[in-house]
């Protein structure tokens, strides 16, 4: 029997109030808030965060990694390898991308259920569109990771009991590579196709599982076509109070990450054993996974629950959002642009740059970065620390000035001056608690410069 061994969901810190949109554009917007990735986050860094949360709670090491996104930071070059390095997975653990559409994410998930080893499926997306458009308002940014394995790998939190998949070629939405916004065919056409496909696939999957719609404890319908998702849910025969909240009012549609994120949310929200959770994904066809929760779920407490992340977060202005997305060119800092990092130097130092691994000498001193004279490698990415002193630099180059820098003393030893992120200048204080976070410092010559920053530990996000 295969199923879910662990999950992790990550929501970026910033939230955009949709009411702020029409004030500038004269159109669009809506009610509620959507999540916004910081200027230093991309699909890869979001994915690292979610995957790290999942692995914190995992009973087994992944033996393969799949990374799905509609917004890959690189083409030609695999993005999953940066996740692999940041998560410090063994080099014999293969890491692959599944990019392009929401369907890639559910495809990776299906492959994981069909595999013979524990597979970590990470999905991350930054969704947006042209200013004032429906995709911008409806979209969200976030990531989710599921560790899929067998009951011999550890206690399954939910078992797969049925599935179905229908594939069909038709044009509902499309985007040429490199374009910042999708284009859509008349909405009614896609709604009709997806409603039919979703309804049929759901029926097939429930039959495969040997159950009826009345047995479903929670129905999750994911996909970028919001009206179709609602229609499939409405026709499913599943009572309305068992249709999962798509988190439109608080997160938005996180694209490739939506299926795993909403599934994680259901597992976290109602950890009752023996409950049927059905995931329907509408993307160029329809895929359905039928899961039954286990006794182990009842005792499982995620280290980084989504609930805490939904409740926290800080507002970002619409102008800042547009600037971060490259949709509003703002005056750059009058400092030289940073040079691209050296590929060979980054490769030599990959344990430090991607894995945040320091070293400890025989005398006990912890060095960050590591010294070639020291014998012991010390991974620091999961270690929290305390702000000893800090400064706000309004002169240094940053894609989003000012730079907030702090000297961090890590719990258990080690000190490093680090850039802070997800923080407002007036909330930084000496003694504040921070944790490392994998970020994209800048992009130069098309090279994304990934490294670790520190961000405040926000109490409600992290249970004791």
């Amino acid at each position, binding site marked *: 029997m295969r199923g879910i061994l662990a999950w992790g969901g990550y929501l970026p810190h910033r939230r955009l109030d949709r009411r702020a949109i029409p004030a500038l554009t004269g159109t669009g917007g809506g009610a509620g808030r959507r999540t916004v990735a910081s200027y230093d986050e991309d699909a890869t860094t979001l994915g690292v965060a979610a995957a790290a949360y999942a692995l914190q709670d995992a009973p087994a090491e992944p033996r393969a990694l799949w990374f799905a996104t509609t917004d890959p930071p690189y083409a030609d070059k695999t993005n999953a390898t940066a996740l692999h390095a940041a998560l410090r997975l063994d080099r014999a653990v293969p890491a692959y991308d599944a990019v392009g559409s929401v369907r890639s994410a559910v495809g990776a998930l299906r492959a994981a259920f069909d595999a013979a080893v524990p597979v970590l499926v990470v999905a991350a997306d930054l969704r947006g569109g042209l200013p004032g458009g429906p995709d911008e308002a409806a979209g969200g940014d976030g990531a989710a990771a599921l560790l899929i394995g067998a009951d011999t790998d550890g206690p399954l939190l939910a078992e797969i009991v049925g599935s179905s998949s229908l594939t069909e070629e038709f044009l509902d939405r499309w985007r040429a590579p490199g374009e910042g916004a999708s284009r859509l065919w008349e909405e009614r056409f896609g709604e009709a196709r997806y409603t039919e496909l979703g309804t049929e696939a759901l029926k097939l999957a429930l039959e495969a599982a040997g159950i009826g719609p009345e047995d479903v404890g929670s129905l999750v319908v994911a996909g970028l076509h919001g009206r179709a998702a609602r229609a499939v849910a409405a026709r499913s025969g599943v009572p309305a109070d068992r249709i999962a909240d798509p988190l439109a009012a608080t997160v938005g549609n996180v694209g490739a990450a939506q299926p795993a994120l909403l599934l994680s949310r259901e597992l976290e929200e109602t950890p009752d054993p023996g409950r049927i959770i059905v995931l329907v994904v509408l993307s160029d066809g329809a895929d359905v996974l039928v899961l039954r929760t286990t006794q182990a779920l009842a005792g499982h407490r995620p280290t980084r629950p989504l609930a805490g992340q939904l409740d926290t977060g800080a507002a970002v202005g619409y102008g800042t959002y547009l600037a971060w997305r490259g949709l509003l060119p703002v005056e750059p800092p009058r400092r030289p642009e940073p040079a691209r990092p050296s590929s060979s*130097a980054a490769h030599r130092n990959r344990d430090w*740059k991607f894995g945040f691994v320091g070293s400890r000498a025989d005398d006990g001193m912890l060095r960050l970065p590591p010294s070639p004279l020291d014998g012991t490698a010390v991974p620091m990415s999961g270690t929290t620390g305390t702000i000893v002193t800090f400064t*706000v*630099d309004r002169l240094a180059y940053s894609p989003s000035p000012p730079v907030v820098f702090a000297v961090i003393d890590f719990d258990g030893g080690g000190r490093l001056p680090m850039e802070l992120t997800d923080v407002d200048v007036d909330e930084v204080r000496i003694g504040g608690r921070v944790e490392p976070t994998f970020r994209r410092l800048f992009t130069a010559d098309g090279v994304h410069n990934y490294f670790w920053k520190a961000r405040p530990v926000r109490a409600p996000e992290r249970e004791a």
Partner: protein
Amino acid sequence: MGSNGIKDRVAIIGMGCTRFTEHWDKGVDDLLLDVTGETFASAGVTKDDVDAYWLGTAQSGMSGLTLAKPLRLGDKPVTRVENYCATGSEALRQAAYAVASGAYDIAMAVGVEKVKDSGYQGLNAFPIPNDGTQRTLTAAAMFSMVAPAYARRYGVSDGEMRTVLARIASKNHANGAVNPRAQFRKEMSVERLCAMPAVAGGLSVFDCAGVADGAAAAIVVRAEDAHRYTDKPLLIKALSLVVGDGSGLMDPAYDYTTFPEVAASARDAYAQAGITSPAGELAMAEVHDCFTPTELVLLEDLELAERGSAWKQVLAGAFDRDGELPVNPDGGLKSFGHPVGASGLRMMFEAWLQLRGEAPAERRISTYGSRSLALTHNLGGYPGEMLSFVSILGTA
């Protein structure tokens, strides 16, 4: 400390210094020709009389050719040196040791920097290919962390600290105002300085060194030969260079209220020179006031003030030009400007003028005539990751 020193074995017999300013109309070659011409005249020698040259420049040129080409030096040994902001001092140190060794009879140290051709404000390091994990913080922000740390350790209020730092800048501006070679020639009141907006931590741009182009130079010979060239040589009493291993950045015990590398180089220099009471023996000090909190901490690390007391002495005016121990009487980096490779030699140039009575009366130090020793100090790097140079020069 393993240094033996070369006390009284080498003398400076001639010096020169350009104005430090935004030399939009002068390049490196022009600055080098100006400063070496002045220095040759000061010593009464020609370029051919000098046996060997050391050129200090942080990033305005590479190799000895940077000096040899504009001066049209014929087949001379010319060495380019670089050691962060101590680059100019390092050039002098190499030249002094070269004549002390007997390898050469006359050597010249030249420091130059052309910083205003970058198109950006401030100093911008030439990027060496790296893994992209280096700090991107400005020097101003790194040094800004010193001020609150010092204030907390010694119970100085934020308001008092702001005034102390402004008092340091105001002093250096007052000194620069009467110095025709200084970049900034305007007095600045403490009140005005306190009102400036912060750009890095609590520091305003007026807490930062002036960014200027400029050059300075010195010619050295063995002390016994000095009187062939001048009646008033400046004797080298001590030269100390200490390079830390950068562990302060990673050391949880480091508290940002002191620069241990500076304290170590001061101890070494005082030992070489036989100085036991720096505050009571020195006539003046030129210290590396790259930022106002730097000068505050240097006063203590260089033993010019007791630990935790420098801020009170600053407020009392002890380090003013007419105070008990004038510090940065030429205006310092703050007001004279900071062309990296030239600054160390510029400091020695002030000692050359003041100790030998050549500084005009309106900017003469209070100690002139009663004391004969000057200290110059350069640092390079950042709190926790630093190198420090100290020289002691004297006329007696």
